[in-house]
């Protein structure tokens, strides 16, 4: 197999006579996708998926050729584009029938009973301490964060739905959602400092025996 340099790939794909390079790229991406997705996708669907995504990825790679910085091998860079496309598609299909509201209903909490105390009665003091802390932090979140930020934090931290899918339902994109969460986390960090509280001390309360 002839290995092209990055410059050779770029020149071949940018030339007017680029059919061979496109086909080579498509085959390489399909191969990469096969390995990237094997084990996570049913065998009966894998071949069709890798073919479809490889085609889409070739288009995206061509559209973004000018952004290739040469910090890796060209095919590594192109394969990461293909992998991202594949996972977006897989997440969309996997989660299409699940709403945020349904997940939120599952996440509404009860009073906390640590597993190690399941067979014994927690002391009222420890239970009260934990519940008091939880109520205080949630009150701070309501005062400090927007409703959108609170909803995003709750849904993302519940850890059930991919960030990308939560973003879709919120009418935004993954990167914008990450920034929204980041802003929320920094605001809360500042709020806790103003209140003389450290996150580490709060976390320790969860683990008190």
């Amino acid at each position, binding site marked *: 197999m002839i290995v092209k340099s990055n410059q050779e790939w770029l020149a071949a794909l940018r030339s007017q006579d680029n059919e061979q390079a496109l086909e080579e790229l498509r085959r390489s991406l399909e191969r990469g996708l096969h*390995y990237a997705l094997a084990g996570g996708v049913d065998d009966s669907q894998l071949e069709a998926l890798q073919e479809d995504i490889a085609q889409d990825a070739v288009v995206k790679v061509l559209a973004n050729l000018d952004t290739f910085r040469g910090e890796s091998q060209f095919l590594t860079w192109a394969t*990461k584009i293909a992998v991202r496309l594949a996972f977006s598609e897989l997440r969309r299909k996997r989660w299409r029938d699940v709403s945020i509201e349904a997940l939120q209903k599952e996440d*509404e909490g009860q009073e*906390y009973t640590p597993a190690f105390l399941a067979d014994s009665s927690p002391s009222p003091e420890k239970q009260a301490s934990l519940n008091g802390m939880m109520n205080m932090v949630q009150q701070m*979140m309501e005062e400090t964060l927007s409703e959108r930020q609170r909803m995003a934090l709750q849904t993302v931290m519940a*850890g059930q739905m991919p960030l990308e899918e939560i973003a879709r339902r919120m009418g935004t994109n993954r990167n914008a959602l*990450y920034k929204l969460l980041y802003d929320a986390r920094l605001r809360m960090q500042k709020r806790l400092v103003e209140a003389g509280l450290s*996150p580490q001390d709060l976390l320790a309360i969860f683990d008190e025996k």
Partner: protein
Amino acid sequence: MNLKPDVLKKVIQSIANAHPNELDCDTCFQQIDRFAELTLAGKPADAALPLVQEHLAHCHDCQEEFEALLAALKAIKQDDSPG
């Protein structure tokens, strides 16, 4: 709000981890190919790109894609090695 305790705990952990130089998903994506190649070569990718490493620790979507990319690169390298 009425968060489940394990969810609130994760919220507080994420607050504890927030810092000014954190990467977002797009910036991590820009560097993930280099990160993957360093990892594959057995080089200290986390030392070379610590902010990428950190983002992957906190972002399940990016971590999932990175692992898939790495699996692809490993398999291709193995396929293509002589003998």
